[in-house]
């Protein structure tokens, strides 16, 4: 037993005889500060478009498609970048998404979507995941810019007005209709066979 008291666990458990409480608190405080700022810095650095397109999977596929859409260039020049639509503003869901991104690292290493063809093969699955996510959070990221309460229906075009009012009444959310607005849609045979050539209804 006395031998065990010299084990690393017991040493950790024993009060310090060398450092003062204030010194230990100071070390803990400074260490914590460094770790926290590192964490926040990392969180900030990985929430940028340049980080997203540092992988060719994003740069060559979805980024190139997005460059032809109004979220990239519009008459007023307001731009929404990747994290504006795909990453929550609030801290907790943001960190949760970052944690979930581990799977993306795994598939990056495995090369699951390493070519255009492979990307196409997985597009439906990936799109459905994003749609489900947006549906579940009531299109939170859309609404952080496009606030329904701030929309002037009278200024919208005839069709937009009718559809938006009806959508609101039916409790629909943005992504229910506005799919594929910034990237190419997957093969929609399974989603809407009435809108695909040669699909069996």
């Amino acid at each position, binding site marked *: 037993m006395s031998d065990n008291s010299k084990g690393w666990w017991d040493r950790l458990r024993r009060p310090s005889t060398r450092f003062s409480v204030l010194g230990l608190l100071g070390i803990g405080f400074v260490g914590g500060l460094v770790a926290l700022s590192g964490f926040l810095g990392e969180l900030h650095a990985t929430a940028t478009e340049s980080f997203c397109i540092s992988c060719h999977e994003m740069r060559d596929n979805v980024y190139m498609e997005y460059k*032809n*859409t*109004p979220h990239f260039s519009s008459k007023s020049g307001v731009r929404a970048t990747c994290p504006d639509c795909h990453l929550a503003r609030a801290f907790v869901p943001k960190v949760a998404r970052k944690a979930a991104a581990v799977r993306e690292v795994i598939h990056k290493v495995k090369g699951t979507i390493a070519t255009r063809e492979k990307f196409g093969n997985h597009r439906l699955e990936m799109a459905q995941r994003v749609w489900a996510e947006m549906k579940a959070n009531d299109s939170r990221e859309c609404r952080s810019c496009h606030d329904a309460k701030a929309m002037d229906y009278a200024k919208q*075009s*005839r*069709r*937009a007005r*009718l*559809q938006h009012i*009806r959508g609101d009444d039916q409790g629909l959310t943005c992504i229910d209709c506005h799919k*594929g*607005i910034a990237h*190419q*849609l*997957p*093969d*929609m*045979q399974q989603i*809407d*066979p*009435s*809108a*695909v*050539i*040669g*699909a*069996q*209804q």
Partner: protein
Amino acid sequence: MKKNICLGIALVAGCLVLAPQSAVADEVKSLRGNIDIEAPSLPPEVEELIPDQKPIKRDYVKQPPLIPHKIDGYTMNAHYNKCLSCHSWANYKLAGATKISPSHFVDRNGNELANLAPRRYFCTQCHVVQTDAVPLVENTFKPVPALQK
């Protein structure tokens, strides 16, 4: 040989006689307009699409209806047709849109199909969007009395 030379002289003479007529050619306007070859041509005016209006009346029987709204960025490929997300029979009610005609479900041999005929899939081959452009030439076409207001 002599005959050929004579013919040549006659041709040259003929060209010289006809030369004043090339002034007529000067009046023909090129597509660039009367702009010097060295000068940059004027950029064409940007015609804006009419954003949204009520369905446009047809001018003759079986006219493919004109598209009364913008279709910027609409996908129309082998995987999806954005137009059909509102105009297909499955979707038109929810979207409050005009449904595609039953004629679009028939192949060229007259067989009725279960889904849109592939030859009818690419909507903009017949249905076109409208801009605010002034017509280049006057059009005196009038619809038959049955279609007039």
